[in-house]
């Protein structure tokens, strides 16, 4: 196959590319320039947008003997990922920018361009597996190494996107083996540190970064009864579930720590409460997609007049959260998930990925939650 390898400059995508070359594919490497700050140099371990990263990717492609290009997606990235990130925070929600990047850039803008230019598929260094259902529809599964599994951030891919996606690292038991393989192949990025942070926030301080971009006003920190407990410099800098940095000063009456329960940009309030008040009994969203066959076509749910019947699943609400047993169903245009035990610290704007076993069934953006304790009015 004619393959376009998305090379970030990190060790994972370099090894994934090497494996695609070794498998006999006709591979071309491409580094996506996503930053509007091309002069930026890497500080610490973060980033996939710096000059050094693009040079690392170029070097790896050179070692593998494949052609390599840098394609500028900074305009689309700024619009679809960065501006979206800011807008979501401004609206009091907590988005996942890596997911948006996969959805709108790597497996959309890049994939479209690849197909236009005659490529069959895009390779990335994500840890996940794509298999085929009996009817030939692709399925997305967790990586063999669950600790490195990145299927969550790929949960947003659709059937068509999966048909053109290739994840050669999906069956690798550990990251250590990937680094060893890079070393063995003579790739200079073998010992390059992992990136953990949001690539477009160079200093790694999301709150400071947002404060420069969202007009913030000081306001009140209140409890669930509306009683003022303290003040903040801008509600949008807070995230549901956050405990540190509330600056309440005095211990709470019961001596228990307080957590952010809700961010309300409309009233510029941050609502806090005890840990149990974070418990969520139900999550739902109208913006959903299926990675491969939908629950009905997969034979695990029956159609209803306005959705489908419930089925047992697991739900994961953050990239590094544990999956939680749940039931899912669809009704009135939204997908609803009811976890067996309440979920803790769910923010609207987050993505819920629904799994059945190792398979990623699909995802939705959480736009409605039901509190287990019904403290929020």
């Amino acid at each position, binding site marked *: 196959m004619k393959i376009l390898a998305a090379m970030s400059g990190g060790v994972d995508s370099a090894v994934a590319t090497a494996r695609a070359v070794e498998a006999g594919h006709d591979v071309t490497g491409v580094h996506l*320039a996503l930053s509007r700050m*091309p002069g930026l140099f890497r500080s610490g371990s973060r980033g996939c947008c710096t000059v050094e990263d693009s040079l690392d990717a170029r070097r790896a492609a050179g070692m593998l003997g494949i052609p390599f290009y840098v394609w*500028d997606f900074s305009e689309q990235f700024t619009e679809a990922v960065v501006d979206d990130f800011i807008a979501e925070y401004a609206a009091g929600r907590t988005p996942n920018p890596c997911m948006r990047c996969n959805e709108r850039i790597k497996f959309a803008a890049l994939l479209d361009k690849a197909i236009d230019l005659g490529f069959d598929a895009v390779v990335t260094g994500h840890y996940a597996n794509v298999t085929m259902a009996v009817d030939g529809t692709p399925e997305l599964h967790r990586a063999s190494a669950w600790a490195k599994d990145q299927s969550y951030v790929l949960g947003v891919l659709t059937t068509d996107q999966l048909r053109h996606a290739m994840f050669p690292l999906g069956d690798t038991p550990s990251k250590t083996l990937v680094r060893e393989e890079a070393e063995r192949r003579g790739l200079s990025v073998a010992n390059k540190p992992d990136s953990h942070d949001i690539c477009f926030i160079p200093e790694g301080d999301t709150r400071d970064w947002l404060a420069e971009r969202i007009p913030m006003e000081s306001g009140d920190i209140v409890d669930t009864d509306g009683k003022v407990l303290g003040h903040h410099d801008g509600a949008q800098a807070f995230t549901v579930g956050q405990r540190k940095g509330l600056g309440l000063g005095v211990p709470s009456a019961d001596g228990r720590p307080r957590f952010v329960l809700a961010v309300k940009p409309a009233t510029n309030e941050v609502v806090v409460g005890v840990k149990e008040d974070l418990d969520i009994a139900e999550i739902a969203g109208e913006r959903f997609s299926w990675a491969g066959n939908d629950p009905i076509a997969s034979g695990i749910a029956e159609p209803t007049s306005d959705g489908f019947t419930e089925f047992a699943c697991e739900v994961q609400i953050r990239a590094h959260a544990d999956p939680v047993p749940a039931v899912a169903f669809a009704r009135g245009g939204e997908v609803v998930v009811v976890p067996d035990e309440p979920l803790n610290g769910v923010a609207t704007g987050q993505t819920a990925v629904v799994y059945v076993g190792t398979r990623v069934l699909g995802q939705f953006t959480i736009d409605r939650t039901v509190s287990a304790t019904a403290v929020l009015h």
Partner: protein
Amino acid sequence: MAYFDYAATSPMPDPVIDAWTSAVHQRGNASATHRDGQKSRLLWEEGRDKIAAAIGALPFDVTLTGSGTEAINLAIKGLFWGRNQTSEDNRNAPPLLRPRILTTEAEHHATLDAVHWLVEAEGALVDFVRVDEQGTVDLADLAAKLGDDVALFTTLWVNNEVGTIQPVADMVALADSAGVPVHLDAVAALGYTPIDFAHSGLAALSVSAHKAGGPVGVGALAVSRSWSIVPLIHGGSQQRLRSGSLDAAGVYAAGVAAELATADLASKVERLAALRDRLQNGILESVPGAVLRGSHTNRSPGNVHITVPGLDSVSALFLFDEAGHAVSAGSACQAGVQSPSHVLRAMGVDDSEGPLRFTLGAGTTEDDIDAVLDILPAIVARATH
């Protein structure tokens, strides 16, 4: 498998490679007094003589540098400092005598960034002389902007992106009447248009060996003795205006290249112009909406620059590359990222016009032209949205 990126760098002809590889066998620092050093010195001087001859300058007026960019920096900063020097030990004491620099927005980044640095670090003021829609300097605007407070006027002899040849004699005459020195970046001119520095009235002129079949790493600045230039690089004073060990092999090879590139230049220009016209006419006939950029009358015989509405240059370059042809979009890139061309913007061309630059040289053949014309319409169609 054609190469259409001579303006980025040109392949070295065999005689140049032979000259270079034979010269590197000579041991000895060209500034040393022993016989080994003297032999190295001779190679360096022979190279400089040939470079000087190729641009019509006296050998001693030519300073060899490590690149065309360095030559341009030396010219612009050195002239600026020289023009603002009130005494030997009183350089650039505020207020500056002549703070203004005249240039255009269609320059190579070597010029734009050097001027920008002078503005930021040294308090220079920049005035951009207008270029017209074909990239030609507007002489009336130049005349209006000249004045006693102008340190220098610097522009391209041949625009590296769109191939426009500037009206050098007219520009120099205007500047001369205002007492303003002129530096020309002639990097894209060497081997493509006759250069006679000694009779040009120019204060300074920069060239680069690797754009004319020489090695990367050798640039040259010719400076008229009428003007004072302050050096950029200090060290062993190996040259009057530039310190650093003399690159005997590189300069020798550069000299051989410059000599080759300018020998019987008129017939070379004629041959290239015919190939250029074949390419540009072929493109204009086969690609709907294609526009030839740069001057239609005074253009480099080695440059065909077109834009096509809605063309994604990055995709087109990929498809050309995949087919084995090295083509460029012409604009500067950082870490491999193509940015919209500041040259086209200065000429008033909209960003939605996708550029393609084909630059020709000594090795370009009719077959190369026909091969690229053969696949070009399909590539443009595929890369246009």
